[in-house]
């Protein structure tokens, strides 16, 4: 207990938080009390070591970011333009599926009484990424190393975890506040996308439209975005738009949607 008190006193001295009386007391004891002076040296070392550990953490974050910068530049140079999809029989199957989907979706929207059915469709097609509290990065020699996140990043990671857990459990109204907070805390636009999804599921169409028509650049998969916008158009009974958005999408989007509608 005595040691704990001394630690606390020395900490306030080192962190320049001690008042004049405490400073005088510390200085006097440092001169006379060898054990106290030794504890002071130890604490000073720990203080500097912790500072070094924070700076080292920040350096790792910058190095990781540097890799992302280089990679994104490379991606921009190397990525070919969007391939034109083949126009064979697959297209006609896709088109037929879209028409069937539209018919069934129309029926669904006419009959539905709750939002949970729509939720099943969304969750079956677009799945969020897993979010971890520890970042794994690859070091220069190719080994994977874990980088612990800063306290602020841990808070964000915790909110992400809750948001996506609730999203996966299709509890969209409860997931919304987490996504709302994430859009303010984190610059990653993926949260805005999922937040807009949740808005759509709870029937906030205006909010959903605003978010789904945000300019995401290449941050969101273009198929996911087109699909989400198609679902919004369905809500708005704009069937021409639904068809134009769904037609170019890969078959798995149509198939999964169809399966989900059949299961209703």
């Amino acid at each position: 207990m005595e040691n704990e008190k001394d630690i606390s006193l020395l900490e306030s001295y080192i962190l320049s938080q001690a008042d004049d009386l405490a400073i005088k007391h510390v200085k006097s004891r440092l001169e006379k009390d060898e054990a106290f002076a030794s504890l002071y040296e130890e604490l000073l070392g720990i203080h500097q070591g912790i500072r070094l550990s924070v700076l080292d953490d920040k350096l790792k974050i910058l190095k990781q970011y540097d890799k992302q910068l280089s990679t994104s530049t490379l991606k921009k140079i190397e990525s070919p333009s969007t391939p034109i999809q083949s126009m064979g029989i697959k297209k006609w199957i896709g088109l037929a599926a879209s028409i069937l989907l539209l018919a069934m979706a129309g029926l669904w929207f006419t009959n539905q009484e709750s939002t949970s059915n729509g939720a099943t469709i969304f969750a079956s097609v677009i799945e969020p990424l897993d979010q971890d509290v520890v970042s794994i990065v690859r070091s220069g020699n190719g080994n994977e190393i874990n980088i612990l996140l800063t306290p602020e990043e841990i808070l964000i990671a915790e909110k992400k975890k809750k948001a996506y857990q609730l999203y996966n459990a299709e509890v969209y109204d409860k997931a919304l506040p987490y996504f709302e907070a994430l859009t303010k805390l984190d610059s990653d636009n993926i949260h805005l996308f999922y937040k807009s999804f949740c808005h759509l599921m709870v029937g906030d169409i205006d909010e959903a439209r605003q978010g789904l028509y945000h300019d995401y650049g290449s941050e969101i998969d273009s198929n996911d975005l087109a699909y989400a916008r198609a679902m919004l158009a369905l809500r708005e009974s704009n069937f021409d738009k639904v068809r134009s958005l769904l037609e170019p999408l890969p078959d798995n989007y149509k198939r999964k949607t169809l399966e989900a509608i059949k299961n209703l």
Partner: protein
Amino acid sequence: MDWISYIKSDENKALKEIYTLYRDESVSWLKKQYKLDLEPAKEIFQVSVIILYDNVITGKLVELSSSIKSYLFAICKNKAAEYLRKQGKITGLDNIPMLIDHVIETKEHKEEIEIKLELVSKGMLSLGDPCRSILQLFYYKSMNMESITDLMGYKNVNTTKNLKYKCFVRLQKYINEHKG
């Protein structure tokens, strides 16, 4: 743009923005001015951004009398000169020694202090969270117990105080067990 407030309020975002804005220009300048290869030039720039951050957080830099770019370039210049002076002594590319030089203010018993600091830094890594975060918030950011309690979402200040003390004792134990 008030960079100092920005760094204080949203540090990672601000650092990434500074990094994106000045990386290419600084690295090219370091390569040309000091005849450095790409990797050392990049490492010097990275350390310089970290030193800028440290100066803001520790209160050494409270107001910029020039642009942030001039300030950053001045740090790069000093670090490049330091790197060239020590080139024969530094093996490989590792910018930790540059950070240690920045953290240690005294020149006496430098090697001894360096070993000690690296040991504390390793101890912090071994602690993991929440200990690591609590100690960093308390010792580096000088946050009080109330603020740490709020940030970490603990029940009350006493919980945070007890936890902080236990974390400190764990770190002390690690240091005592691993010192030569």
